[in-house]
């Protein structure tokens, strides 16, 4: 068993929390739409079943990965984490620059309500449309959370528990907000979150690839700060380079 250094685990918890928050907000929007149009039994049943499967995946895959040599895990998982993080960061850059539209939870909610209202209501037993819609969105978004938790947990060397706690905290916060607001959580600055998470995951991925490949980082763990700063500065620079140029004209 690994001893958990909770001071060292802080960045892992933060990254897992923020990344999971983005995914849970997207799932919550659809689950709320299912509940509002088809009833809460099917909406919560489908989401609950998916959460159970996702928890099982973490419980089974997480410990299995810890049996593989750490350098191999760091190189393999680090590469996947880097691809995942840089994909998010690139998308966040393009959204911040106005090249692609921002994610709109209210519009997604309205679209889901309109789609789900087309099916006949079920008054007895389980509403299959509700269960499957809710199950599918929770699985689809939850798989990303599972990947982040397992990747952060395994590549960090025994940080599965802190990463899981970060994701669970995000689940509690998002469900709490959903219950309190009873509408999509559109007030969370989704692109800022994606930007931040993209920077964090890209930095962790780069660091672990270096560790796995046997490269020397200056200052060892402290070089993560340099990596965060480098990705953040480059991303800000990219936003300004990507912004469409407005040509000023005299009227």
């Amino acid at each position: 068993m690994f001893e958990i250094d909770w001071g060292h685990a802080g960045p892992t918890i933060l990254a897992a929390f923020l990344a999971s928050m983005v995914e849970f907000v997207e799932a919550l929007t659809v689950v709320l739409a299912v509940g509002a149009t088809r009833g809460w039994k099917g909406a919560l049943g489908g989401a609950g079943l998916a959460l159970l499967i996702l928890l099982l995946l973490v419980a089974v895959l997480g410990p299995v990965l810890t049996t593989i040599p750490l350098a191999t895990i760091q190189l393999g998982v680090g590469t996947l984490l880097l691809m995942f993080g840089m994909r998010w960061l690139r998308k966040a850059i393009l959204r911040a620059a106005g090249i692609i539209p921002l994610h709109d939870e209210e519009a997604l909610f309205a679209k889901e309500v309109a789609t789900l209202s087309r099916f006949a209501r079920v008054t007895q037993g389980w509403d299959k449309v509700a269960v499957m819609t809710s199950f599918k969105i929770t699985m689809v978004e939850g798989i990303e959370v599972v990947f982040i938790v397992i990747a952060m947990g395994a590549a960090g060397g025994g940080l599965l528990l802190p990463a899981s706690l970060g994701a669970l905290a995000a689940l509690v916060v998002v469900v709490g907000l959903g219950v309190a607001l009873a509408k999509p959580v559109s007030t969370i600055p989704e692109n800022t979150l994606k930007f931040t998470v993209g920077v964090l995951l890209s930095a962790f991925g780069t660091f672990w690839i270096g560790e796995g490949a046997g490269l020397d980082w200056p200052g060892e763990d402290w070089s993560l700060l340099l990596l965060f700063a480098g990705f953040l500065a480059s991303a800000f620079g990219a936003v300004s380079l990507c912004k469409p140029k407005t040509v000023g004209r005299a009227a």
Partner: protein
Amino acid sequence: MGWLKAIGAELLGLFVDDVGFAVSILVWVAVCAVILPLLGLPGAAPALVLFLGLLGILVESAVRRARKG
């Protein structure tokens, strides 16, 4: 089985949005992990080469996508 297909697509989509971008990252990581250690560069130089290359790939890909409109 539609949901299973969606999960499969989502799994691939976790890592690949733009194929050129994903391949560039993979190639650069492979070059840095396999070739750089053989060159005998001093101290932290290989790690910094890895990092700077990734920053270049990120900025270039975003700018290229933006110019496409």
